[in-house]
């Protein structure tokens, strides 16, 4: 088939497309992913029984806000990775801000604490499961994000997948915060961030495998 013939065929009876559909697709798929993740957390882990008391503690809101901020800022990265030729500007890297802020907070808390308390501040009671649980909880939302990206045309599949992983990891951290009893900033700076980054790495690997077109 000659190129001219291909052009003629492609331009015959051309169906209208909705260029703004992606944000709706992403929103609905993510809503579904959040619902599955929340169900998984409630079913397998359960709400923190002390949650009502936690609502009055500043660090609880830092913990919840961290995950929500990473997720909200990663949306920008996902959206700009989804379309070919979109500049990935500073806004798309803004997800780093809550991570760096949490690290700073963790370092300050460690410096202010007596040396004997420092290990407890980092390891808490649940360091063994924290990152793993966040990564696990991120999976439904990661799959939702990747399915949404499949409908688009990411020219950097691994990075696009990583962005979907950050979005899922941030949201998973926020959901997990409703179960997790830890409140120390150093703990969050290490294990929450690690959970989010595991999800991003999984997204990069999956993205490279399934986002090619």
């Amino acid at each position, binding site marked *: *088939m000659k*190129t001219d013939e*291909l*052009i*003629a*065929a*492609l*331009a*015959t*009876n*051309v*169906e*209208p*497309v*909705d*260029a*703004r*559909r*992606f944000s709706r697709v992403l929103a609905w798929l993510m809503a579904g992913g959040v619902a599955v993740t929340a169900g998984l957390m409630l079913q397998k882990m359960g709400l923190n029984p002390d949650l009502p008391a936690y609502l009055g503690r500043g660090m609880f809101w830092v913990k919840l806000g961290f995950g929500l901020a990473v997720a909200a800022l990663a949306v920008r990265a996902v959206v700009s990775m*989804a*379309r*070919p*030729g*979109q*500049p990935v500007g500073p806004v798309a890297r803004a997800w780093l801000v809550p991570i760096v802020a949490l690290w700073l907070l963790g370092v300050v808390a460690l410096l202010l604490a007596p040396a004997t308390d420092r290990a407890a501040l980092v390891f808490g009671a649940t360091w063994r499961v924290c990152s793993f649980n966040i990564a696990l909880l991120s999976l439904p939302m990661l799959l939702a994000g990747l399915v949404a990206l499949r409908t*688009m*045309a990411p*020219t*950097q599949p691994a990075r696009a997948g990583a962005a979907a992983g950050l979005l899922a990891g941030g949201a998973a951290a926020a959901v997990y915060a409703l179960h997790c009893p830890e409140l120390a900033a150093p703990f969050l700076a290490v294990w929450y961030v690690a959970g989010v980054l595991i999800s991003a790495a999984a997204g990069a690997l999956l993205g490279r495998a399934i986002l*090619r*077109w």
Partner: protein
Amino acid sequence: MSFPEPMDRPRLNRVNDGREAQLRELLVAGQRGDAAAYAGFLRETVSLLRPFFRRRLAHYLDDVEDLLQETLLAMHNKRATYDPDQPVMPWMYAIARYKLVDLLRARAGREALHDPLDEDLEELASEAGAAAQEARRDLAVLLAELPDRQRLPIQYVKIEGLSVAEAAQRTGLSVSAVKIGVHRGLKLLAAKLRESR
């Protein structure tokens, strides 16, 4: 994986400002279903991308037309990913580069397998294989391999230009099945084209 092209940016800015506006108008109308505008967009795209690929495939000039067709098909299948609020040229060239890099990577992988001692043999084989390869990459041939549910809708609606309703009548499929057949069939064609190189 980005392709550093120091030559492209200034050229893009200087010469193509007027073209940018024109291309954008054509593609936005094409996204709404304006066939004439869309054909214009595709023709303009070809006139920009053919030299773009020729410059970068100096050693594989035989591949230029194949890559061009593959890029056109990809652009068509992904035409909803163009955001009308953004400039159209970066969108177009990003897709073209993505397909170019993909092709070069496939070529590089294949060449790494070549044994230099077998060059004569290689040449003979490639001459014999040339016709077959061209035919294999021919979209009309690939189309013939699709299942009827996709092949017939594409044949009637895209190539013969029947309306979707007429094609539905002729195939016995529902109107939406015809539309889905065209959509999925073109995606499948793009995938086959990728695999076949």
